[in-house]
């Protein structure tokens, strides 16, 4: 089987830069929808991907001359369907007649609602199946639903292209061989399966958020995660999905204020006028909306905590008692020491550094650098400068992020 053209822009080298960029953007936006519909009809992920790639080559040939069709998604679905039939005929697949019939008899309209949308939902549950390793779920989701190319995903995760290609190939093989279903899970399995999907999206977001500085070559994983979570939110009516989207938006909103002069700026010192107010507003709206359903979950609660932070006009006006209350709820649904650490920092704001430190010191997190940062800050406020300095040093040993190191060195040296 011929390999899929991973870099469509290169294939259509005669196309002018701007229109090929526009086409690539359209194709990326439509990729999940088109490939998902083809996978359902063909029952074969590789064939579906190849057919979509063929359609893309045709688009790059025709659109610059004929103009972009009014409904590019429908055009791509139809063209990819025809390309699939061509491939089936050419490759004389054993079940060619059957597959051809499935392709020809499909009259599913290409519309934003209905069965076509269900295809994308089916596909995300297949890509994020718990039988696949987390890193493979991430790769497959970005490839099939995000429409990112293998080299793009490889660069984003700083792994060699061959490694990423192998990851994706192996996952597709497991889906086929182990017969991982292409289906929305039963109501009984939905909560756990959905949380596996959300974990993938949140991981993609954080990968983009934490490594966002000075990496011109990397695709913007945070925007990609937001885009996919937005899609998911239109497909399932679950408050945790809105919660995750809200959490992402409220985090993303602060990105412009997060780094200044190569140095990490902590939340309390950020210039709030740099925050993206449209994202803050949308995030707040989502938080109110999902909390109103009264089925709180970990993402909704984290989003709510971020909403309290972004609600204050300046850091001195933050409602810490509400934040502690939200952390209490979060601990009840997701008990873990990292949540306890964050709660302890909020408790310190409310009841003083001594109370906060006594909680922090009880936690077994010595290999987690934020634990040392929290100790350093609390010890500093208690005037225990030698211990504080030692804690900054320990945190510095455990972090490689340049912006964060610059911030910690600054804090330590100002003692």
């Amino acid at each position: 089987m011929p390999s899929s053209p991973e870099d469509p822009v290169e294939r259509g080298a005669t196309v002018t830069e701007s229109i090929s960029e526009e086409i690539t953007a359209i194709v990326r936006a439509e990729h999940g929808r088109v490939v998902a519909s083809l996978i359902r009809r063909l029952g074969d992920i590789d064939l579906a991907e190849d057919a979509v790639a063929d359609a893309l080559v045709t688009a790059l040939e025709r659109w610059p001359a004929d103009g972009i069709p009014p409904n590019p998604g429908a055009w791509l679905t139809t063209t990819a369907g025809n390309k699939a039939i061509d491939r089936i005929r050419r490759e004389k697949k054993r079940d060619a007649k059957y597959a051809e019939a499935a392709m020809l008899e499909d009259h599913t309209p290409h519309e934003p609602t209905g069965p076509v949308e269900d295809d994308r939902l089916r596909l995300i549950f297949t890509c994020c199946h718990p039988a696949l390793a987390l890193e493979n779920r991430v790769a497959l989701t970005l490839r099939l639903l995000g429409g990112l190319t293998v080299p793009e995903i490889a660069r984003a995760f700083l792994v060699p292209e061959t490694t990423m290609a192998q990851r994706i190939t192996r996952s597709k093989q497991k889906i086929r061989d182990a017969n991982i279903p292409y289906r929305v899970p039963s109501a009984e399995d939905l909560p756990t399966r959905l949380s596996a999907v959300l974990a993938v999206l949140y991981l993609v977001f954080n990968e983009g958020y934490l490594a966002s500085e000075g990496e011109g070559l990397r695709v913007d994983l945070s925007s990609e995660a937001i885009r996919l979570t937005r899609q998911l939110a239109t497909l399932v009516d679950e408050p945790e999905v809105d919660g995750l989207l809200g959490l992402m938006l409220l985090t993303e909103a602060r990105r412009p204020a997060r780094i200044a002069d190569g140095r990490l700026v902590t939340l309390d010192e950020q210039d709030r006028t740099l925050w993206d107010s449209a994202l803050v507003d949308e995030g707040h709206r989502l938080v109110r909306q999902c909390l109103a359903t009264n089925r709180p979950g970990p993402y909704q609660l984290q989003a709510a905590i971020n909403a309290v932070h972004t609600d204050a006009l300046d850091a001195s006006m933050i409602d810490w008692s509400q934040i502690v209350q939200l952390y209490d709820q979060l601990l009840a649904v997701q008990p873990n020491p990292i949540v306890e650490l964050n709660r302890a920092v909020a408790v310190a704001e409310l009841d003083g550094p001594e109370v906060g430190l006594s909680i922090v010191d009880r936690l077994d997190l010595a290999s987690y650098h934020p634990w040392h940062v929290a100790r350093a800050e609390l010890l500093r406020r208690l005037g225990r400068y030698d211990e504080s300095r030692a804690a900054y040093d320990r945190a510095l040993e455990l972090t490689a992020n340049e912006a964060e190191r610059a911030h910690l060195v600054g804090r330590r040296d100002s003692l």
Partner: protein
Amino acid sequence: MTHYLMAVIHDWDHPDLSEEEQQESFRLTDAFNTELQGSGHWVFAGGLTHPSDATVVDGRKGASIVTDGPYVEVKEQLGGFWVIEAADLDEALDIARRASAACMHPVEIRPFQGVVG
């Protein structure tokens, strides 16, 4: 429909079940097997004797070379297995969950190439 192998792998010489738990797991596994036969997922199943009973035969060069097994000397060895038929991996995983609860060990599930038998 896909056929799957469900393998029970455990440390034979350091059993993690007490004598009573073992008896209970036999009882539960029998009941589970009856259920599996009733639901049409059953193809075959069996428990194996101790890995030291294994014999390795190499007939690749014409003559048969026979050695005392097992083939790979590792702590964890196959203890028994099922071959089942299921609609897809989700159904197989549900069966595997029940199998694991019955035999009181984790089970590893792997698809067969094509149809068995």
